[in-house]
């Protein structure tokens, strides 16, 4: 029997998005602690040490740096598989890197868990070894529009939208999904601004948003641009009616540290909420474990990363083997009820493309320095404040 199960973790550890990589590292280490040590949570593998299915074998993580480059991601995946003998890989933050990493995993028949990539195109490539437990951007966007529909029924005026998204895969995919659903449901997009990620200035962009002055501003931006966007809006005297953000930067502590005072009432989609701790105390406890390591609360990214590793480890445990194909089959057979996760999901069960369609997104509103869940109704603990402040 193996005494150790090795899993590869591929993230950007240097370059512009190193921060996400470093945070991810802490999230995975938290999951590792839950799995390898005895913990009293109602999570798969929390109780007892290691993987009982493999005779109590412990999991070891090997971290690799892809520097946001698909080629490097691929090389690292290959190295992890052939040299470090990992039995599965988890990653990658950037969707472009997920493309090449998942290809290599497919070729070596090693499962790839796409913990935090939200590009819808990823699971539609007919890969056998690709799995994503979290929602993708179309699901997220649909949730936003469900929310708008509900608000409209209550008499709120939501007709016009401004899209604001970066020119990367994430931004483009998100913008496309929003445009599509808006068209289907009869919302008018008055401005659709695609901007260059990490721009030195966003004043021209904000000027256009201000001129359009739509009912809702829908940004898809990472932390850096998010901070700049909010600051520039304040400087140019633009106070939108409502902001409904496609997560990313808008779930990062750094953004609220910087400009939180200007964001009272901002709404972000997400798939995690600390509110859940009220119903499910373990969420709070695990969050404390994470906070001890990183100094931050779980956010949308780190919670997905945590959960991704738990789900993967659970499958390895059930496969009772480190053989890629067996783990794959076990992953395909996964069925974890929602309350055995730290997420507000119905359950974890993958379709034939490796996508979990029961991962319900939530909408969170930033109120008084905290996020509260406002949608869907079954998860909500408060009513939405509309317009924001």
């Amino acid at each position, binding site marked *: 029997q193996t005494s150790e199960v090795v899993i590869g973790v591929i993230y950007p*550890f240097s370059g512009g998005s190193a921060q996400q990589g470093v945070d991810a590292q802490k999230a995975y280490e938290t999951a590792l602690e839950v799995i390898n040590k005895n913990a009293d949570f109602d999570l798969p593998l929390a109780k007892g040490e290691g993987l009982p299915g493999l005779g109590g074998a412990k999991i070891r993580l090997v971290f690799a*740096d892809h*520097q946001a480059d698909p*080629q490097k991601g*691929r090389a690292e995946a290959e190295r992890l598989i*052939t040299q470090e003998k990992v039995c599965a890989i988890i990653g990658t933050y950037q969707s472009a890197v997920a493309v*090449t990493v998942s290809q290599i995993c497919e*070729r070596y028949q090693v499962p790839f868990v796409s913990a935090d990539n939200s590009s819808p195109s990823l699971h539609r490539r007919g890969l056998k070894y690709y799995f994503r437990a979290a929602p993708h951007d179309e699901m997220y966007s649909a949730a936003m529009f469900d929310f708008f529909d509900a608000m409209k029924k209550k008499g709120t005026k939501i007709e016009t939208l401004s899209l604001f998204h970066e*020119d990367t895969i994430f*931004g483009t995919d998100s913008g496309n999904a929003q445009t599509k659903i808006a068209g289907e449901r009869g919302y008018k997009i008055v401005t659709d601004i695609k901007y260059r990620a990490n721009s030195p200035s966003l004043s021209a962009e904000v000027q256009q948003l201000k001129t359009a002055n739509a009912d809702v501003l829908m940004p898809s931006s990472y932390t850096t641009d998010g901070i700049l966007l909010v600051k520039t809006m304040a400087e140019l005297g633009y106070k939108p009616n409502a902001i409904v953000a496609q997560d990313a930067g808008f779930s990062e502590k750094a953004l609220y540290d910087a400009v939180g005072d200007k964001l009272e009432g901002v709404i972000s989609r997400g798939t995690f909420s600390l509110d859940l701790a009220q119903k499910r105390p373990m969420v709070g406890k695990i969050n404390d474990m994470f906070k001890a390591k990183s100094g931050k609360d779980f956010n949308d990214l780190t919670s997905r990363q945590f959960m991704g590793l738990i789900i993967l480890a659970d499958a390895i445990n059930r496969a009772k083997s480190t053989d890629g194909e067996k783990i794959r089959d076990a992953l395909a057979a996964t069925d974890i009820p929602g309350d055995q996760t730290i997420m507000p999901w119905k359950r974890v069960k993958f379709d034939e493309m490796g996508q979990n369609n029961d991962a319900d997104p939530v909408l969170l509103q930033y109120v008084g320095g905290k996020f509260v869940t406002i949608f869907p109704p079954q998860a909500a603990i408060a009513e939405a404040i509309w317009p924001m402040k």
Partner: protein
Amino acid sequence: MDKNFATRRRRDLIIAAGLAGIAALAPLFVKDVYVQNILILTLMYAALSQSWNILSGYCGQISLGHALYFGIGAYTTELLFTKFGVLPWFGMLGGGVIAALIAMGLGYPFFRLRGHYFVIATIVIAEIGLLLFQNWEWAGAAMGITIPIRGDSWLKFQFLRTKLPYFYFALGLCCLAWFVTWWLEDSKWGFWWRAVKDNPEAAESLGVVVFNSKMGAAAVSAFLVAIGGAFYAQFLAYIDPESVMGFQFSLLMALPAVLGGIGTLWGPVLGAAILIPMTELTRSYIGGSGRGVDLIVYGTLIVLISLALPQGLVSLFSRSKAKGATR
């Protein structure tokens, strides 16, 4: 006639053939795919840098925008393949020709510029190319192009199960770029380029048409780099603007030649042989810490090498004789 000279050139050719032979046998001993991957990248960057060296090293027109040609090679190949079913081999040639034409088209306005004005113009034009591809919906914009996997085939130049064909192609490209340089070095063009680099005014007075010389160098250089881009796209089976046209490629094409010895026959190969494994290994084995140590190590090495050997690593070989004689 000039026996010294003729023997030196023959010696270069023999050494190159020997190295190529040894390299060709490498896969017999190197089974580790990760190491194979490093070898392929090393050969590819050696070839790219050798091509860059033609324009920037020999002809003295420092370009930090060769990523444009690299990207054009990659995109031409993959757009032709995915949209029109044209085999990558033709796409590769087409990409090379298009890149060469673009290089010459840009030459008209650019070659009037000198020094930093030229360097910045090359950076800027590559950046424009990147932005245009990033926004060009038909070409996949930011989503890039995923090359459909149709199983191993030489016809489609696509291999999942083995890296060896890529290895041999990269080796071939490297040999080609080296040989073209070797051949041009002792030709009218080679002399013209070096003359243009050292003193364009004097060159002009000796019958060298400076503008045409630069154009020639740009075309050859861009053509070869575009072939490299096409190769990279096939090798990676996925391209997006950042990952084939980013500024880092322009730097990575120049860096081996500079570290090895700019404007020399062996500089790019030597530089790539040191630099690329160093890049890969520092990232792989110390990059996972998330603390930037790999950057510190990598950057320090670059600073030290370029300070210690400003004329490049080749100066270790060529100078040693002269020094021995006099000291």
